[in-house]
């Protein structure tokens, strides 16, 4: 501008038409010059910005940035899931202990072409992964491929160590993986999901969509009780060389399942490799003839249909012959028994006679009301269809009275027991913790208050004086019923293959918890004089589970001389001094 100004002053004054043309040219020149100067300034500022301002910012968090980009991986946005997919929700037990969660894991792969120093890299990696040998890594790193896996699902420490190697040819691939911190504990109820986050079994399957929307699910399980139950069942299965078992702990007031164990169990991280017998959920998929445990239901049905006292007697001296069937007693008393005696000595003949008195239609309806013979309605969707005789003849009524010829699942059995003892309200088993914890799960009445009270006293009698003595825990008024059923092998009952079970309820004067343990094919031991019945096998295990439960839940015992401790002892007047039981 200064230049153009001088130009003007020194120039010869040109007038007229030419002068205006010159002015125009000059103006354009200035405009152009101004434009270029402006651009230079812009470029200079931008260059200064890139070189100095931003350059300093980058060098300031250089280390962090490099680590960050390496940790995040290149194939997806840093640390985020695609916006439309929520991370699969967690599953916790009632106390918030984590049962299933989704973790972001990194797997290490190498591009051998980019490895700068193969020997050094292999040496470093061999130190980080002790389970892979130096030679093995060296071989992988010198291959001609552009992609070789080194190790999957690294722990954060391993990831960090790999980054410290500073080898450009090593990269991470990230994935989301379902992780089960409790391992096999509770695996049958929690279930498992595949690598794509699809629930394949248990709660993972039953609540697949809910979990995939990112919601957390709280179950009614208590992992402490779950462990106690599993520990005692494992011990019993070992002692009696059994092939498996099923166990449940239920809150009889609302149907909450506090623990559910099916053995053998499996590692949910390796569910695909588990044996079929391990993955099989005996709790809901196994339908079993429960044996004498069913006498709880047939006698309750008898009380419902006959308003009689406990002194009603049944002649159990002779086996019942019906068609080609003969019904005998296992713990034979060979005399006339009162109702308490029938129950405490677990007389098949006595219960069959009661079943006959109840009548086929009544008994069928009663079992159906207790949800024993209809498919289980439950949050875990893998359920078995109970097996009922078809057609149902009179002989089936008699055998169903002592738990043969009718097969149902352990979950249904414990729910029906809960319904009978809790005052008579139908219990629907539930595994997902309800908002209103205290509320009963249904208000449908299945037996009268009176019948429920009678059954409580009878159940207590079995433990104080009958076949379930081994189940008692002093101060906790345990009641219960033993069950021993022969398994059907090739269409016939096999006397050597049994299912021995015990269902215990406590405290019997105001029932709160039911514990059911069923052991598959126990073999008698020297200690049990060769016996492998419910009273020898399952009852002691239930006793130990209850002993653990009261310590975990902090339930105080009653004192020996308190009135509730004498609960149900009035019934002893109906028990004559028989020859006792095994």
């Amino acid at each position, binding site marked *: 501008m200064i230049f153009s100004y001088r130009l003007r002053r020194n120039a010869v004054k040109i007038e007229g038409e030419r002068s205006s043309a010159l002015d125009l040219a000059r103006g354009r020149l200035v405009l152009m010059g101004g434009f270029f100067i402006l651009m230079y300034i812009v470029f200079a500022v931008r260059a200064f910005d890139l070189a100095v301002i931003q350059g300093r910012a980058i060098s300031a968090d250089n280390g962090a940035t490099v680590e960050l980009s390496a940790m995040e991986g290149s194939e997806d946005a*840093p640390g985020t899931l695609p916006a439309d997919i929520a991370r699969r929700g967690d599953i916790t037990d009632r106390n918030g202990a984590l049962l299933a969660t989704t973790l972001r894991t990194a797997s290490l792969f190498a591009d051998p072409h980019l490895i700068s120093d193969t020997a050094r890299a292999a040496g470093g990696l061999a130190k980080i992964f002790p389970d892979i040998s130096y030679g093995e890594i060296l071989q992988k790193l010198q291959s001609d491929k552009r992609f070789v896996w080194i190790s*999957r699902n690294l722990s954060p420490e391993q990831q960090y160590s790999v980054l410290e190697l500073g080898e450009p040819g090593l990269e991470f691939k990230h994935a989301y993986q379902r992780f089960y911190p409790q391992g096999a504990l509770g695996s049958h109820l929690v279930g498992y999901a595949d690598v794509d986050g699809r629930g394949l079994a248990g709660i993972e399957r039953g609540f697949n969509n809910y979990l995939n929307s990112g919601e957390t699910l709280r179950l009614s399980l208590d992992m402490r009780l779950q462990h106690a139950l599993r520990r005692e069942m494992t011990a019993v299965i070992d002692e009696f060389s059994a092939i498996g078992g099923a166990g449940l702990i239920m809150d009889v007031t609302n149907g909450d399942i506090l623990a559910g164990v099916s053995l053998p169990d499996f590692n949910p*991280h390796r569910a695909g490799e588990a044996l079929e017998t391990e993955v099989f959920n005996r709790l809901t998929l196994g339908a079993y003839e429960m044996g004498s445990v069913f006498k709880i239901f047939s006698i309750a049905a008898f009380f419902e249909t006959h308003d009689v006292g406990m002194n009603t007697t049944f002649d159990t001296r002779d086996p019942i012959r019906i068609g080609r069937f003969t019904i005998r007693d296992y713990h034979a008393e060979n005399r006339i028994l009162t109702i308490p005696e029938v129950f405490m000595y677990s007389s098949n003949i006595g219960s069959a006679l009661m079943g006959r008195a109840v009548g086929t239609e009544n008994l069928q309806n009663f079992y159906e009301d207790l949800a024993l013979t209809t498919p289980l309605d439950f949050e875990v969707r893998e359920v078995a269809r109970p097996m009922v005789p078809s057609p149902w003849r009179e002989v089936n009524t008699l055998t169903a009275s002592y738990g043969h010829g009718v097969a149902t699942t352990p979950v249904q059995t414990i729910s029906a027991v809960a319904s009978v003892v809790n005052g008579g309200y139908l219990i629907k088993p539930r595994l997902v913790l309800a908002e209103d914890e205290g509320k009963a799960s249904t208000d449908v009445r299945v037996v009268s208050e009176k019948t429920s009270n009678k059954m409580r006293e009878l159940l207590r009698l079995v433990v104080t004086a009958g076949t379930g003595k081994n189940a008692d825990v002093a101060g906790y008024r345990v009641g219960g019923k033993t069950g021993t059923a022969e398994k059907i092998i090739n269409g016939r009952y096999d006397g050597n293959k049994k299912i021995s079970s015990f269902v215990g309820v406590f405290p019997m004067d105001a029932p709160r918890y039911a514990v059911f343990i069923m052991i598959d094919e126990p073999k008698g031991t020297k200690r049990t004089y060769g016996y492998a019945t419910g009273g020898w096998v399952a009852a002691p295990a239930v006793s130990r589970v209850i002993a653990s439960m009261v*310590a975990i839940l902090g339930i105080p015992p009653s004192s020996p001389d308190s009135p509730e401790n004498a609960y149900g002892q009035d019934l002893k007047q109906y028990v004559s001094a028989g020859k006792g039981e095994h």
Partner: protein
Amino acid sequence: MKLLKPVNFVIFAMVALSGAALLHTSQNVQRVEGDLRSLEASVQRENEKVRLLRAEWENLNRPERLERLAREFLDLAAPAPETLVREDFVLPAVPEDEAESVFMEEAAPPPPVVRDVAYAPERKSARALPQKAVPPEKLPAAKAEKTFGELLGELSERRPQ
């Protein structure tokens, strides 16, 4: 020459100034956006770490493991039902004048340490504890125990895409 009017200089200066201000602002925005991204990423990363640590914590707190460790290293077992305080139990009342002496008494011997009274299904391991203090790392480790890293490693594998 219209262009060289002082007002033009002023306008020019203002354009340059506002240009510089604009540049400065846009730089600031970019930088702050960068900071935000890296903070968000690091929050995300920390959250992942928290999840991982929680999973490990829960894994280490498995009742089975705690029970085993308590038995091996602390010689403790769960209380048996007989040792629980009964529901009708009340602390014996102490007469007013004795109350102080009861709490001040220091000569009273410590209660005897009762071992193995509680229910312990595997008493052998409690007895087998060496009498001399052996540092925990020298005790034989349980063979079934898997480290958290090993557990992670056994998660089902996703095929490379």
